[in-house]
């Protein structure tokens, strides 16, 4: 971009129409605008800014651009325009950029309309001017001179002083030198974790979840199939066991059928044995009873003949039995001793009562045995009485015992007979028990079979289900494969670009440093060196005892350093930088740019001013400087042969500057 002209209409103190043509002659590429402080140098710089980007940074009334003298002349209802128009050459095409703001006396004051729009038109190859559509205006301006880079071509005094310490200088440098294309390409490619970048987008497009699911599904299918194999084995084993037990069951049925008689005989034998046992118990009881009764009853029984004999004896013998029954001699003797009878009569020796008692003594034992014998006779009768019953009872018991014995013997015979019949044949009960056991086993095996089949069906369902999942995910997987390839490509490009960028950046930084130092040497009249670090921070080094150390910076050396840096940037931009790391060369050569500077020589001494003035026109394609008269005096000697155009700002009033 080279600036051909600047035309202003009522812009601040530039009342009326002010037009500046800038020299575009490569040999005399310097345009000088002379003017002392407050003459409007800064306003000129702001005019560029306003035209390009609609922004100004005045200290006073930054939003009001209309010339105050015009304002003063305006009547209510009047309208006046503020307009800046820049004609420039960019990529060999002539562009006209203009911005107009209408101010109207409305009510009691003059107010500017909001958002003044810029217009852009360009000259077609056939010479016809073509307007750029309103919506494209901002883009076109940005393509010509990005706003964020503009400040590096339009320097006010303050910014010249701070250029080498600004933090965003790295980005500015990159942009200026065309590295930003690669940088933005790298940024656009991005990385997997940055979702808005190309690679990040690809990556987020990938259905990683799906892949994991597919693998999971596959694992589940495999697991289920393994399970099914185990189930098959178990089913086989189960089936063979069922077969075995069914076979055994048939065998047992055959045995039991063949031995049905044996079984029933066995049963009968057991019944008989049970009865025998009962009978034996009854026999035992009866025997005990028999002996017990014999023990008690035998006396009376065997005494019977003797009883009869005694009866006969006592019948035949004469026994005196006149005595009072149970009355004994001691009883009578007791009555006599007491002296009174039971009837109440007194008893004493010689009286009637005494005599009666003494007579009675002859009939009582031991003198008389009548009572005792009579007693004995009665006992004889009672004594033998149980005998009859004893015999009958013992007979009954005895017969009962005999019957039991007979029965027991008969049954024992029967048992022996049965035993004989079933002798040698195995115990059917054992087989019956085995049949029950086998039946239980078969039942359990069949239940297990059902469970296994059910489990197998469940596994098969799982397999079908997961296969569907897997198949559907396989399609996703195909897409993923493609995306992955794209990511690979993108990442390779990213890597190549990054590498190229790094290589180029190093080269550029080295070149920049070299260039800046070349310029610095030409500008600075001492022995110092400029160093540019990775962040494009610029510092001055001085050599002390073969060692470079950071040197103290003065206002003057600082200014020179900054100019050298700016000049270096612009100079470098002009060169075509070739990186050999690429198969194909990437042309990042920059468009030429102007250098518009406000008061560049302030704080610089005579020598430096001269040096700067000599170097700047050589390194920049176009130099536009707003210079104070006193500074220009030093510069003019070295620069005048490069000056293509020169203007003088005349301050008519505080609110009116005229350009001549």
């Amino acid at each position, binding site marked *: 971009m080279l600036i051909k002209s600047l035309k202003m209409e009522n812009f601040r103190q530039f009342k009326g129409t002010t037009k500046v043509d800038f020299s575009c002659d490569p040999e005399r590429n310097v345009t000088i605008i002379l003017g002392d402080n407050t003459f409007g140098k800064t306003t000129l710089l702001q005019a560029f800014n306003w035209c390009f980007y609609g922004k100004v940074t005045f200290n006073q009334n930054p939003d009001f651009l209309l010339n105050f003298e015009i304002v003063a002349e305006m009547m209510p209802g009047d309208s006046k325009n503020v307009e800046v128009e820049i004609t420039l050459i960019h990529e060999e095409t002539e562009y006209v950029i203009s911005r107009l703001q209408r101010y109207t006396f409305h009510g009691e004051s003059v107010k500017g309309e909001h958002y003044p729009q810029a217009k852009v038109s360009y000259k077609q190859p056939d010479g016809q001017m073509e307007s750029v559509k309103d919506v494209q205006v901002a883009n076109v301006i940005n393509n010509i001179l990005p706003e964020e880079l503009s400040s590096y071509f339009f320097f006010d005094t303050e910014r010249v002083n701070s250029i080498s310490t600004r933090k965003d200088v790295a980005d500015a440098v990159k942009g200026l030198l065309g590295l930003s294309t690669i940088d933005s390409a790298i940024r656009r490619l991005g990385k997997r974790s940055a979702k808005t970048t190309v690679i990040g987008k690809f990556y987020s497009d990938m259905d990683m979840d799906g892949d994991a699911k597919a693998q999971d599904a596959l694992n589940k299918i495999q697991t289920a199939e393994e399970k099914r194999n185990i189930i098959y084995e178990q089913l086989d084993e189960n089936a063979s066991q069922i077969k075995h037990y069914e076979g055994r069951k048939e065998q047992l049925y055959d045995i039991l059928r063949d031995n049905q008689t044996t079984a029933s005989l066995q049963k009968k034998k057991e019944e008989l044995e049970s009865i025998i046992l009962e009978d034996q118990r009854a026999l035992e009881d009866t025997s005990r009873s028999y002996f017990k009764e*014999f*023990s*008690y009853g035998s*006396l009376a029984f065997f005494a019977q003949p003797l*009883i009869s004999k*005694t009866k006969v004896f006592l019948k035949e013998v004469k026994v005196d039995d006149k005595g009072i029954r149970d009355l004994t001699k001691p009883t009578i003797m007791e009555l006599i001793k007491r002296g009174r009878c039971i009837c109440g009569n007194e008893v004493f020796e010689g009286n009637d009562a005494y005599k009666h008692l003494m007579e009675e003594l002859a009939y009582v034992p*031991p003198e008389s045995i009548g009572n005792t014998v009579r007693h004995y006779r009665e006992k004889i009768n009672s*004594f033998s009485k149980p005998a009859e019953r004893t015999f009958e009872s013992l007979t009954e018991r005895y017969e009962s015992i005999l019957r039991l014995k007979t029965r027991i013997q008969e049954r024992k015979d029967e048992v022996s007979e049965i035993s004989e019949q079933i002798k040698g044949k195995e115990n059917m009960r054992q087989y019956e028990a085995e049949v029950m056991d086998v039946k239980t086993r078969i039942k359990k095996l069949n239940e297990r079979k059902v469970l296994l089949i059910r489990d197998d069906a469940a596994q098969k369902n799982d397999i079908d289900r997961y296969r569907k999942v897997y198949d559907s995910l396989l399609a996703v997987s195909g897409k993923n494969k493609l995306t992955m390839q794209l990511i690979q490509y993108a990442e390779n490009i990213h890597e190549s670009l990054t590498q190229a960028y790094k290589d180029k950046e190093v080269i550029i930084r080295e070149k920049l440093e070299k260039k800046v130092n070349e310029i610095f040497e030409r500008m600075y009249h001492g022995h110092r060196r400029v160093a540019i670090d990775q962040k494009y921070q610029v510092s001055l080094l001085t050599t002390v005892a073969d060692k470079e150390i950071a040197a103290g910076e003065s206002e003057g050396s600082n200014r020179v350093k900054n100019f050298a840096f700016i000049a270096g940037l612009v100079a470098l931009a002009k060169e075509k930088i070739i990186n050999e790391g690429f198969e194909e060369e990437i042309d990042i050569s920059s468009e030429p740019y102007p250098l518009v500077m406000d008061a560049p020589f302030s704080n610089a001494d005579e020598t430096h001013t001269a040096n700067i003035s000599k170097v700047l026109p050589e390194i920049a394609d176009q130099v536009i400087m707003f210079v104070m008269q006193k500074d220009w005096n030093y510069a003019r000697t070295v620069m005048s042969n490069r000056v293509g155009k020169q203007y003088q700002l005349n301050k008519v009033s505080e609110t009116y500057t005229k350009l001549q």
Partner: protein
Amino acid sequence: MVFENDCTITGKHATYLKFLVQKAAKDDSDDPEKSQAPLFERYIDVYMNAVIWGLLYSRTANSDTDSADRARIYADAFANERDNCVFLYRMAMLLDETTEMTPEEKVDRAFRYDTQADKAEEFKKNMDLFNAYVRGGIEQMYEQFTDGCLSRDDYLDKTYYILKTFKNEIEGKSYEEDLARMIG
């Protein structure tokens, strides 16, 4: 008074008595203890039966001292069976034929001596006689009831046979008659 003190049977009579009371019979079953049955429950049962058998067979015996075996019947046992023992004593005194006596003398002996202090000597002789019958009876019983018996069944049959035969004899029938009638 009679039968108020312990009475000790000695020698073979003690052995026999014990045998008859002991779980006399052995069955052929596996558990001999269980299957044994006493022919007589108590010593005193044998004692009382013995005097009967002694009298029935007019058999008396002197005390045996050949062996040291002893069987003691305690006063307590006599206390329970005193009535029967006195009854049997009097019977023995009445029916004894070993001494020459008139029936009246036998009655006196049977009913008077045991209460008369002045007849203590005679009473002791009577008791000796009574016990001699007991000993004779024990011998008789032992021979009768245990002859040829080994098992409980043997004893069962033996006792019943004796009972039956005895019964028949009382009724004036003989075993042979029974058989004849059964065969006839």
